[in-house]
């Protein structure tokens, strides 16, 4: 019988020689491995392309060209400038006049005039006025300033603006580049790390040199604080109740389905909701991180509930049974035994939810956080929630839409900073999971 079936099926088989069928199966396995490897290589390739292009486009945002000069402002000049409507213009005119005088004294070999110097400088008036308003005692004595040059000079330094492609415009003339070269040799213009980009606030469209992402980092921080403080307790409480206490019936099924659906709702919908409920109905302030945080809380809640329930579920029932068996109440069993064991999973889910919320722009569009929001740092903790501020992704979006190509660089630079934040959060999530995870 056995002989018959064997010979009837495949003929004689041997363990030492491979027959056609085994060869086919081995080949199939090899092919499958090759497919998998290809998929990983393609994925890695795109990742590398993405990172290289982000870093290459974004790095110029972290350096800027500055004009370094000793500047003296007399009390009379200060009073005169403060008397005008357009004070910062008066300051920058004084600066230009002194720079021109100093250059003439040095005897530069290239021709230049006041207009050329004005084209080379960024918007320096704001910085000067800010400095002298705070340090009135420095009036009348020489102060060493290094103020940002115009965005075109920046572009010339990092290769975005070239002599060949340059067309004379009122922003920069080809002849100005000779002056730039001469100033660079004289050490008056140089390139340095742009701290203002990391610490500053947004600036007007004609002033890319003054733009920084710092204020919107603070905005994002306050939003995340609201999200964390609201969505973690609410999410965990909801999932503990649903997982451990709620009866299994149609009503809880309905809630479950709705939570899963909510997790898939496009984020812009939460923005519309936020506008209608928080701003128009509850009269909370527009453009405030508080409202942004509330909107993002709604968005993050389902993510946290789903991951919390998954990690509660993964705690073995024997733990609960043992706790109940030695006389713990249901609540004691949950809070003393199940919750601590589920904590790493809950924290990971929360951090991933927060990271998702951090990168979200669409809901902020409708509550006034996208646009020109340049209030700078909030004064005080409560003000951080209520004063208008932007958020990192919103700031990047705003910059990407501006005409000056220099803002485009800033947008990429902003993306690098946002990615650093996201990576840090994900690393924290991984460390927490590694540290506290228990396997059964």
């Amino acid at each position, binding site marked *: 019988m056995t002989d018959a079936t064997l010979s009837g099926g495949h003929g004689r088989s041997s363990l030492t020689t491979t027959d056609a069928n085994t060869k086919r199966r081995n080949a199939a396995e090899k092919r499958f491995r090759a497919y998998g490897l290809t998929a990983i290589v393609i994925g890695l390739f795109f990742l590398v392309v993405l990172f290289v292009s982000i870093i290459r486009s974004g790095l110029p945002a972290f350096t800027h060209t500055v004009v370094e000069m000793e500047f003296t402002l007399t009390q009379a000049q200060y009073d005169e400038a403060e008397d*005008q*409507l*357009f*004070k*910062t*213009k008066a300051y920058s005119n004084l600066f230009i006049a002194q720079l021109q005088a100093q250059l003439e004294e040095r005897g530069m070999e290239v021709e230049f005039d006041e207009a050329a110097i004005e084209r080379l400088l960024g918007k320096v*008036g*704001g910085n000067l*006025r*800010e400095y002298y308003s705070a340090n009135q005692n420095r009036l009348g004595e020489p102060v060493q300033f290094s103020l940002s040059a115009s965005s075109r000079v920046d572009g010339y330094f990092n290769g975005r603006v070239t002599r060949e*492609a*340059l*067309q004379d*415009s*009122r*922003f920069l003339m080809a002849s100005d580049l000779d002056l730039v070269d001469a100033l660079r040799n004289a050490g008056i213009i140089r390139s340095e790390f742009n701290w203002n980009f990391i610490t500053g606030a947004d*600036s*007007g*469209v*004609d*002033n890319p040199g*003054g733009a920084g992402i710092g204020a919107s980092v603070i905005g994002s921080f306050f939003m995340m604080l*609201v999200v964390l*403080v*609201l969505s*973690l*307790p*609410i999410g*965990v*409480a909801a999932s503990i109740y649903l997982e451990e206490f709620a009866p299994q019936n149609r009503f809880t099924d309905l809630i479950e389905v709705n939570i899963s659906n909510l997790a898939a709702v496009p984020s812009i919908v939460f923005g519309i909701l936020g506008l209608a409920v928080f*701003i*128009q109905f*509850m*009269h*909370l*302030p*527009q*453009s*405030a991180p*508080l409202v942004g945080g509330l909107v993002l809380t709604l968005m993050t809640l389902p993510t946290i509930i789903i991951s919390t329930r998954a990690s509660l579920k993964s705690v073995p029932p024997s733990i609960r049974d043992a706790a109940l068996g030695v006389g713990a109440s249901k609540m004691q069993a949950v809070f003393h035994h199940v919750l601590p064991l589920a904590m790493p999973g809950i924290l990971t889910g929360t951090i991933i939810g927060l990271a998702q919320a951090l990168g979200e722009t669409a809901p902020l569009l409708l509550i*006034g956080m*996208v*646009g*020109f*929001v*340049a*209030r*700078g740092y909030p004064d005080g903790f*409560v*003000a951080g*929630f*209520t004063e*208008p501020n932007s958020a990192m992704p919103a700031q990047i979006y705003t910059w*990407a*839409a*501006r*005409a*000056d*190509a220099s803002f*485009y660089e800033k947008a990429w630079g902003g993306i690098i900073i946002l990615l650093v934040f996201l990576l840090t959060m994900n690393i924290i999530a991984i460390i927490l999971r590694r540290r506290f995870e228990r396997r059964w």
Partner: protein
Amino acid sequence: MSFMKMTASTLAIAAVSATAAAARDNVQVAGSSTVLPYASIVAELFGENTDFPTPVVESGGSSAGLKRFCEGVGENTIDVANASRAIREKEIQACADNGVTDIIEVRIGYDGIVFASQQSGPEFTAFEPTDIFNAIGATVLKDGELVENTHETWSEFNSELPDAEIAMFIPGTKHGTREVFEEKVLLVGCEETGAMQAMLDSGMSEDEAEDSCLDVRQDGKSVDIDGDYTETLARIDANTNGIGVFGLAFYENNTDKLKVATMSGVAPSTETIASGEYPVSRPLFFYVKKAHIGVIPGLKEYAQFFVADEIAGPGGPLSNYGLVADPELAETQAKVESEETMGSGS
């Protein structure tokens, strides 16, 4: 129980902030993405030059801005709406229905609309309104007959234009720019080619003919751009034959990538627009809610600062960025000074 404490403190914070928020201390602006750059320049300077906080300026388009402006009076509504066209009768009515009756109209200057293509692309250097209409109108006049537009290349209807495929990127209907483009280019082209007359002869009423003149072909040769000019620029970058509609200021910031075409023989510049020679230009406005003056700190000062000679006048930062200064700026200043609303006065 730390959760409980956290929740309680959050609610406390929320309550405190809600009360603190009762007095908004900054001017809130929204509206046209064409006016946004100018408004952001003014907002930054306003914050630097006065003791008031920097106003918040949002974008979103003229219509969207005016809609929010007309939502009512109160701190949770915006104070100023930017618009790249004048407010419509319908919108004034909507405003009035919500209690926004006293509106101050402020004209800040003029903006030119230019037609630009890739620096290294085909020689698109001179257009007439008729060329644009022949390229993208839905129904055009061909050999004396009204036919559906099947033009594939520019040279098909004007041998002086390059033999390049038609690909136009025009502002979407939510932009105020679209209206100017329709009125000053499409409609003019429609009349000049004789298509308008042919439509009237075929029995259409004046309104129907006008509407049909403004119809744009839907076969992909003309693309509506609903985003900003940067989106148009990206499309032009990707398409050698592409021609985009831009604001003058945007073009001037990107002369290394774009070359501009003349319209009816006139090259766009602040001078030709100010003199009225360049045909495709429009006034830019912002609208102020009078009821908010005195309630929102710095609102009137913001409006005054915006139209001051040093800012919006010739040689100021706005005209340096590409705004064409309004020759009648002094009248606007007087209007803001006396808080003259629409419909009152002259």
